[in-house]
């Protein structure tokens, strides 16, 4: 069988045939008595890696050469100390499928493909997670997906000023930098110090996105200051726009440790962006030396305020132009706020919950500040490489812990301290991408994802109808009734559960799987990326047996009856909590 598969792939024959052989050939673990065990169906490591017709770049064979486990050791120890101090038992390591689903959701924005799972099963179990991680990092969907997430952080989700702002260009530019693993500090410097045309230099759109405020053809220094503080310093300082912090909400490093922010801090930060002017379409964005003026609380007249960094002034090089100097100061590896904020956000993207919450407001007394500092060290040591940080996070004990435990009852505190993997809500696009992924057997590529979204005429409509949170992270709240209706009766689920042999994986499983046990097993793998438990298998088999059509011996005997039963189970799985939550 392995020989046949290799030859089919090598010959580049229709992917459908090859995939069908791969997907449908394995006997179910239920039938083999393997269900509930951590099985390793084959030790044949010579089989082809996860290379599909649509995604040849995603090569599982190129594993990382460095050892992320060592890099993350101090972080693991720090996090474990917190669990021990709180007297919390930690969960055991999750199975490889669960870990790979987490990787897929966080990096690609969807669950795994059935084909990926089957191919990974042909590799030694110990190498599957690393192999899958590398395949995702090599997939252009990763850089595209993260570029979109970071675009929201950097410029929001608004359409912005029509003539001066090109959000799509900005996102594509970000994707290219991520794909090339441009160090994040360099990326941010490029953006903060950018000049020129928004069409020619997409990073300029960081500023032009705000040129729809009171002053036309000028970036809005207030909005940029607020966003810069949140995204790059992990500080919500927006209240300082109007008054000093009298509630202890902000904290800046100083000789005595930390100090509360002031209104002057905010406007000194905004002053770095006060001279950003947008000239005619030939020049683009430049600094025009206009002084930044505002009236502080209690002042009747506006006064000029000079640009000044709020802390670590010794890192600031005043010989450079203002924005360039600020960008250097901001991203200096000794500026702990920048490294913390960056590490916290990447952790949040990977696990669905930041180490310190909220993700854009990190206080010095936060419970997990020490582990965050350890993670920030990893980032700095790896020269702000996102790929390396991601490898380290995946290698961490916390990322690989189970969320479902036996032997003790987990609490919210277990989740907060990552003693168990936290259950977190998926974003709308992750849900719809997961449904689209589960409607086919092979991995979605960038192009096929767009094609699928177009085919269903859903595109961003799903996210919009579902309640797109923009640049905000989703709160862990229950889905709304509108969302429930969309999942039950909306187009993506409807298409994925429609009896349709050509384009529908669920129907193909119904038609071509060799037994009911295989059907159920493959549906679980396809939609939830795990094997059914013995209880689930028995319950569903019993459900099918109870089917009135079976009793009468009519439709169930036909392929149509098998497909019908599969679409019913698929509907239940598409709508169950597990699909909508990372775990």
């Amino acid at each position: 069988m392995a020989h046949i598969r290799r030859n089919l792939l090598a010959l580049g024959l229709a992917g459908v045939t090859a995939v069908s052989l791969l997907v449908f050939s394995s006997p179910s673990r239920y039938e083999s008595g393997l269900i509930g065990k951590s099985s390793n169906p084959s030790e044949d490591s010579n089989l082809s890696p996860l290379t599909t017709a649509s995604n040849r770049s995603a090569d599982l064979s190129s594993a990382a050469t460095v050892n992320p486990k060592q890099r993350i050791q101090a972080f693991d120890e720090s996090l474990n100390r917190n669990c021990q101090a709180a007297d919390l038992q930690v969960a055991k390591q999750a199975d490889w499928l669960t870990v790979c689903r987490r990787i897929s959701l966080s990096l690609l924005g969807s669950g795994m493909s059935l084909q990926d799972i089957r191919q990974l099963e042909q590799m030694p179990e110990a190498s599957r997670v690393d192999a899958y991680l590398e395949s995702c990092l090599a997939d252009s969907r990763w850089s595209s997906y993260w570029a979109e997430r970071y675009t929201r952080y950097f410029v929001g989700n608004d359409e912005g000023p029509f003539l001066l702002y090109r959000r799509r260009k900005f996102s594509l530019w970000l994707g290219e930098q991520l794909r090339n693993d441009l160090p994040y500090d360099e990326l941010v410097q490029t953006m903060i110090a950018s000049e020129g045309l928004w069409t020619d230099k997409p990073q300029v759109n960081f500023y032009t996105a705000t040129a729809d405020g009171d002053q036309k053809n000028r970036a809005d220094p207030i909005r940029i200051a607020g966003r810069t503080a949140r995204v790059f310093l992990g500080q919500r300082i927006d209240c300082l726009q109007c008054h000093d912090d009298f509630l202890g909400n902000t904290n800046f490093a100083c000789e005595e440790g930390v100090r509360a922010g002031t209104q002057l801090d905010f406007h000194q930060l905004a002053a770095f962006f006060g001279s950003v002017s947008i000239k005619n379409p030939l020049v683009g964005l430049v600094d025009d030396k206009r002084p930044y003026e505002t009236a502080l609380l209690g002042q009747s007249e506006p006064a000029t305020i000079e640009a000044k960094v709020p802390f670590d002034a010794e890192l600031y090089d005043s010989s450079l132009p203002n924005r360039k100097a600020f960008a250097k100061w901001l991203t200096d590896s000794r500026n702990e706020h920048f490294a913390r904020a960056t590490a916290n956000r990447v952790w949040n993207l990977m696990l669905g919950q930041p180490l310190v919450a909220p993700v854009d407001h990190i206080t010095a007394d936060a419970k997990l500040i020490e582990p965050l500092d350890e993670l920030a060290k990893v980032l700095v040591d790896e020269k702000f490489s996102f790929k390396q940080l991601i490898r380290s996070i995946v290698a961490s004990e916390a990322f690989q812990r189970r969320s479902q435990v036996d032997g003790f009852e987990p609490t919210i505190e277990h989740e907060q301290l990552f003693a168990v993997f936290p259950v977190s809500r998926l974003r709308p696009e992750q849900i719809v991408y997961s449904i689209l992924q589960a409607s086919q057997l092979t991995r979605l590529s960038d192009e096929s994802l767009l094609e699928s979204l177009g085919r269903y005429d859903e595109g961003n409509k799903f996210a919009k109808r579902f309640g797109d949170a923009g640049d905000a992270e989703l709160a862990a709240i229950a889905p709304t009734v509108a969302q429930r209706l969309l999942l039950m009766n909306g187009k993506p689920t409807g298409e994925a559960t429609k009896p349709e042999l050509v384009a529908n994986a669920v129907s193909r499983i119904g038609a071509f799987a060799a037994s009911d046990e295989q059907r159920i097993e493959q549906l679980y793998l396809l939609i939830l990326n795990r094997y059914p438990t013995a209880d689930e298998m028995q319950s569903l088999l019993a459900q099918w047996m109870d089917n009135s059509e079976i009793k009468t011996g009519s439709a169930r005997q036909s392929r149509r009856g098998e497909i019908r039963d599969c679409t019913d189970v698929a509907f239940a799985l598409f709508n169950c909590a597990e699909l909508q939550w990372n775990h």
Partner: protein
Amino acid sequence: MNNSIFGMPGCDSLQRFSRRQMLTAAGGAGLFAVNPLTTLAEQLQQGQEQSDSRSKPAAAKALIFVWLQGGPSQLETFDPYPGTKIGGDTKAIKTTVAGLEIADCLPATAEQIHHATLIRSMVSKEGDHERATKNFKSGWRPEPTLAHPAIGSILAHASSTNIDLPLHISILPSQWPSLGGFLGPQLNAFTLGDPAQPLPNLVGRVDADRRATRLKMMTDIADREFLRGRVSDLESMRLQQRTTADRAVAMMDTKQLEAFDLKRETSEVRDRFGDTAFGRGCLAAVRLVQEGVRCVEVELSGWDSHVDNHGIQYRRAADLDAALAGLLQTLAERDMLESTIVLCSGEFGRTPSINVAGGRDHWPTGFSTLVAGGQFHRGQVHGETNSSIALDARPSVEHVVSPISIADLHATILSQCGIDPSEEVQTPIGRPIAWSEGQVRSELLQG
């Protein structure tokens, strides 16, 4: 309080805070100076002085928000200046309110405008469609750190009505639907298209028995396994799989959906709203309010007329005219105006000058809004714009007599719906904030 757009009681996620006195000095009461010019509005209105402390118990149970996306021109709708340098080709017609004339493209509305207050002096600081839309729908200028809820979300949040339908519905929304903001996505408007079309996501793909079997498999098999070995209150505090599924099914099966079945109305009533999706939306809004829905937004988009202003405005006004007149007439006939507020506006108006392409551009200082119902005056005009304004004048509140800010309008409507606009709630990040930063404008109200 309701934490969902559906009329089911739920836990109140927002903690109440007594109003802090800090930072109120910049409040909106004294934001705009009153122009001392003699005005039509002054001739028409009762001469009541502005009072910012008034908040009466509300009679209004519902809000119908007629949203004109794109920036309708006040000069081609409710504030024409025929024969002047800014008037363009628009002609004016008399209305049922003595001394009040509106554009001749709104003849049916002219016959019903005695039910409403016409504000000709709306002002804002937002001239971009998206920001101005968010500003008008929420009453707050957009800010990066806090998403303010739309007024319909606030009304739904404050309601204890128990119905199967959503309490906050938006019909024909386009780019920027009304959202729950910091109140949460459960208070986003439930969005629908033309009531003549099948309702989106409300019709199942299988029969009820098979749907029940599927949902039973979901809850009893898949969800049961997911809950095993996890935080004990995961279902009740986060997932709420059963609850939302039950509510979704209840909505799919409820007879209250007959509110969308406009065939239950007489042909005379249907015809008065016009044979358009927007007209049907307005009629459905009346029926939804009768079923207990708290806020229905009906959108008519396409008012952005940088080119061929006159043509675009008149074509849009043709759809608006029948529906708005039908709405006012029907609510009055059914004795619903006391308990229903009608708000009709776009995000801003259009420039006094006409550009080289025959268009008018964005103009946020001095645009028109029509409001009716509750305690709002009937047959009254508030505020005035200036026909002698320089054609190259920049937007400024100084061109407007008796300006009304969007925040003040929100505060006044909220007060009419029984909500104290100054009441503070805590946002999810712990920031205390009032429902509205505006002041109740008593001069818009009776008594």
